[in-house]
């Protein structure tokens, strides 16, 4: 798999699922926590990528 974006999605999913399982909150709160974590990783990475757009290497 060579797509950076797919790796971002896969990695975020793995890490979010791990911390979701590790969390001791109630079921609904757990899922909410996992979604927030996943969104933060994916959209955070996209935001940083967008900010880096003016600085190509």
């Amino acid at each position, binding site marked *: *798999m060579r797509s950076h974006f797919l790796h971002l999605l896969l*990695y975020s999913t*793995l*890490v979010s*699922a*791990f911390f979701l*399982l*590790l969390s*001791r909150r109630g079921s609904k709160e757990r899922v909410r926590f996992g979604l927030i974590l996943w969104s933060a990783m994916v959209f955070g990475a996209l935001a940083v990528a967008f900010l880096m757009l003016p600085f190509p290497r």
Partner: protein
Amino acid sequence: MAKDDGPESAGGSRRPSSVARTAAVLIAAWLLPGLGHVLLGRVRRGVLFAVIVIGSFALGMAHDGRLALRDRQAFLTSLQVVANAGVGPADLAARIAVYGEAAYAVPEEGDAGGFEPRVVRIMRERSRSALSAYGTAYLWTAGLMNLLLLFDAWDIARGRRD
């Protein structure tokens, strides 16, 4: 089917386990990700943890992740080795498969007769792969997740968590 995640589940009461049992659980948890939770009665959670950690490790190996070698002149490489080794004996097996030996450190200068040591050359060749950075992230993540699982298993065994 075993109950899971309840405070009264098999082996999972809130009473602290003995020191010997806690130690056995921690060793098992390091040997096989998720096994510590299974032994503490958290079967479903343990299996899911195993899938996540082993899956991450497999992805790392499939993407030519770097199996770090400790370099005396670079402290961070020691932390990288710890992150790799956290996943348990799978890391050792991977090192033997990749390097042909259980290499954890860069050989001392002079051991290679002035040439770049073989294990360093192999590591560099793997790092040249376009996917190696992803592979390395997956490998380190697998190891660090398993180390976190050890702490979680410790807390459960000592009755501090459900």
